[in-house]
């Protein structure tokens, strides 16, 4: 999917405008303080208003420039999600979710190996030497980090709820 930069600016402006409205609306739930003249609601509202104005400028000027660009070759960029990116996002979320259950060492070994596989070019999957190095690093790095923090720095990394 090809999307021009100006179109992306329009989307970004709309998202930031909605975010500014959200910040302004939620400020009504902040208790009103009387300890000072401005109070605890003033700055968030002020920021939300400024953000709203600027995101409006970003959106409107991008729409204007887009109209002008329709007859010209505007700068375009390929967008859309791809498998490597999706898998990296999924790996990061799973790493956070599982680290508290299985602990640092096991989760980090699994994450490191999976993340390396995601980043490796496909032709390297059949290269036994590279795969062995990847596996060795995936095991050694978390074990070494855990050893250093546990034995030398006396800092406990998450051990996992299942092993407690």
């Amino acid at each position: 999917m090809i999307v021009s930069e100006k179109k992306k600016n329009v989307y970004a402006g709309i998202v930031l405008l909605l975010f500014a409205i959200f910040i302004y609306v939620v400020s009504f739930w902040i208790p009103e303080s009387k300890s000072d003249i401005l109070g605890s609601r003033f700055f968030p509202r002020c920021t939300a208003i400024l953000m709203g104005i600027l995101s409006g400028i970003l959106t409107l000027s991008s729409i204007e420039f887009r109209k002008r660009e329709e007859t010209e070759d505007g700068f375009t960029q390929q967008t859309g999600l791809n498998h490597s990116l999706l898998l990296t996002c999924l790996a990061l979320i799973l790493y956070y979710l599982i680290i508290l259950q299985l602990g640092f060492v096991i989760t980090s070994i699994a994450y490191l190996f999976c993340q390396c596989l995601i980043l490796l070019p496909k032709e390297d999957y059949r290269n036994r030497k590279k795969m062995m190095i990847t596996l060795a690093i995936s095991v050694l790095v978390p074990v070494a980090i855990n050893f250093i923090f546990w034995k030398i720095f006396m800092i406990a990394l998450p051990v996992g709820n299942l092993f407690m």
Partner: protein
Amino acid sequence: MELLHGFQTIFAFDTLFLIFTGVVGGLIIGALPGLSAFTALAIMLPFTFGMEAVNGISFLMAVYVGGCSGGLISAILLGIPGTPSSIATCFDGYPMAKKGEAKKALGAAILFSFIGGLIGAVVLSFAGPHIAKVALKFNSYDYFAIILFSLTTVSALSEGSIVKGLLSCLLGITFGFVGTDSLSSYYRYTFGINKLANGFNLVPVLIGLFAVSQIMLAAREKASSSKVIGISDIIQKEVKGFGFSFKEFLSYLKTAIPSAIIGLLIGILPGLGGNVSNLLAYSYAKKTSKHPEDFGTGVVEGVVASETANNATVGGALIILLTLGIPGDNATSMIMAGFQLHDVTPGPLLFKTSGVLVYAILAAFIVANIVFFLVEYYGLSLFVKMLSIPSTLLLPIVIVCCFVGSYCANNNSLDILIMVLFGFLGYVLKRNKFPLAPLVVGFILAPSLETYLRRSLMKTEGSFLPVLQSPIAAVFLLITVFAVGFTVYGEIKKVHETGKGKMI
């Protein structure tokens, strides 16, 4: 004379060994993205329990110096700031590495870090008490104006359009609201999550924005080019010495000296540390350069400005800590904890009551700067060897270190989630060409900006006029107006000249 006594005190084998170990430990930890000088100090602090005050505090000083300087390695080689103080080093250091000039960038960064640190050390030793007296006269109006100036200049001068720079800054300020309001003690934007009462921790926010987003970009590049682009694939040019001539060195001094002054002044101001000074010095260098358009593409001056300023800031931060007892940033607050561990109270009376200790600490600070320079310079080839590690292996390892760094900052699992979420945000912002530096600066300075303005208006009973009557505040507010006005004028002129939109 007192400083000579200080050197005499620390010239013992155990003290010198501890300084060396502290610098090396700080360098290693600071070089790892996600583990900052603060984390290095947090890890090393327990080791000082059993030490004498002179040894313990000298060791912490060495860790601080090493931790602040280690960040330049990952900033240049990976494009990820190892510490908040080296954000601006990435802007030109990483493009230089991508052009095959990693060794030159590292050489310049090491030399000017040393020069910045040494200038900071000299000023700290000889002019510290006098400079602190001036800072003591600053009131809340002045602090408000200085912070506003920092925020607007960083937004206006960052890469890309001013609208996106300001929006990024406002986004950072908004994230700074999360937590307890310092004046009223009411919770804001915590949505019932008690762990957010102290707001977002800087470490996971920073790691997420810079490091996690980096691996996502790497994954995307792999898909579009079928090969991960890393500097390990680029042939690096061989260099002699630091990679530049004596004539070039003299020309870089024109950038280094003002940057050192910026670093010192920012370090003296509480709340503003190396994370602000490197960005301000970079902005200054860019603005005063004959070729500002080259900044961000890999120019040595960018690296020089950032590294001189952040190391000079250490000296400035220590001035305010030793003479006023105020920690300038989170790293100096750890050193303050070290003082308290040894029953030493930093403040105006420290020079009178513990003169021997103070000058020993100052001597340790100077020696630590020399040790860091030698270790980093002679270990340069070892650090450059990091380039041979494929990014497909290095980036996942960095992410594991980032998880450890985020978790260790507060022993809080929520910080890991915050890091991941800010990683997604950083990726989206980078893809949409929003600069990240204003967001980080906005996030760091938002609480101070708000507190100082509200305190000022409490003093003046709501009138803004006395704020403008304060000379320091008036000067900074005027400079802010001129800086923004000048940038907006430049953008409008550019749009008119090209005929079609470049403003957005």
